[in-house]
């Protein structure tokens, strides 16, 4: 979740950021050269863009992050660039959605299933990130949380399919495919963050988490 003005700026937020930056720069640059700090005539209260523009900006960021992480694209090899504009809204929606889907599929103990799924996924993302950091890897905490959340998207798709069709064989196939997809999505980012000798140590727990989520999807009756 970030209100950012990294290049390129989203057009919708350009005006208000410029306004506010002008206000800030005016006070910084009115320096000792002038007799009195030459302040421009007080601008009218900076026009905050309508809320809808900010919502649209955040939504488009979620979509673009999703495309960068989960689908093949030229930036995959450079993980730093891939998720530069991290946000936690996408992961939040995907985790909740997965919990809801699992909960819906369960015929008993629905609340427990949801709470467990949410807690495991959220805590799992944090622990996986700490794992990489403790292995001496170079990642940014929130960027990694964001990535692991977005990589849940294929499993979400798999869970919905399994919800609709109750055939066990189909479930196993779908889960295997989506599991491979999730791991493929997470691989470049995680592996490039650590020393090559420690790659397996960093990747194995990620794979393990996705496998256990896959089992949850298959086993939910």
């Amino acid at each position, binding site marked *: *979740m*970030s*209100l*950012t003005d*990294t290049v390129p700026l989203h057009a919708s937020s350009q005006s*208000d950021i410029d306004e*506010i930056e002008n*206000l*800030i720069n*005016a*006070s910084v640059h009115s*320096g*000792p050269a*002038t*007799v*009195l*700090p030459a*302040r421009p005539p*007080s601008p009218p*209260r*900076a026009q*905050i863009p309508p*809320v809808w523009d*900010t919502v649209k900006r*955040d939504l488009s960021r979620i979509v673009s992050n999703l495309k960068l992480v989960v689908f093949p694209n030229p930036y995959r090899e450079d993980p*730093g660039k891939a998720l*530069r*504009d*991290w946000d936690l*809204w996408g992961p*939040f929606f995907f985790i*909740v959605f997965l*919990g*809801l889907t699992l*909960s819906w599929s369960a015929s008993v103990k*629905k*609340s*427990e299933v*949801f*709470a467990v799924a*949410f*807690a495991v996924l959220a805590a799992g993302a944090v622990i996986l990130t700490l794992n990489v950091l403790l292995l001496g890897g*170079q990642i*940014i*905490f*929130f*960027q990694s949380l964001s990535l692991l959340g977005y990589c849940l998207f294929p499993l979400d798709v798999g869970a919905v399919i399994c919800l609709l069709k109750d055939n066990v064989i189909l479930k196993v196939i779908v889960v295997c495919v989506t599991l491979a997809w999730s791991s493929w999505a997470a691989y470049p980012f995680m592996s490039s963050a650590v020393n090559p000798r420690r790659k397996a140590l960093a990747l194995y727990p990620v794979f393990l988490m996705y496998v256990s989520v896959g089992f949850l999807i298959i086993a939910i009756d």
Partner: protein
Amino acid sequence: MDPNQPVQENYANPKTCFFHILFKAAGLAFYILSALFIDNFVIIFVVTVLLAALDFWVVKNVSGRILVGLRWWNEINDLGESVWRFECLDQESLARMNKKDSWLFWWTLYLTAAAWTVLGIFSLIRFQADYLLVVGVCLTLSVANIVGFTKCKKDAKKQIQAFAQQTIASRVSSTIQSAFSVV
């Protein structure tokens, strides 16, 4: 918005204040009342956390800028390092901010965090781990906003000090200059 403030200052942005409070109050109210009426934990969780997330977004993106002129965010720079940015409007605009607005902004932030803490203690006493999870998420979101905006305020104070020093320095030098030009 009323540019000619009446003698007794009113809220300058009533609609923003309303929304600032709306989601906080709705989240707390839903959580407290739902325990009485709704039996389904999943619904309680999803709705409460959704309201808390909406509140986080509104405070960070809308009411922070409008009510107190502060904003904060995170960037990843070209070196791949994460940089937290805290910004405030310049002195004049900050001074023009409505006092009631900022009072409301800060106090509702603090009160909400305190309320969630109390509710968390209740669920801890009752050994309800799943409700503790809900409270934990909502509390994290509230605290994140408090920390972010408090750091902005500190940045604002530093800016005031820097500006004051700058102004004093410029006045001193300009006085000396005008003294020399007269001679």
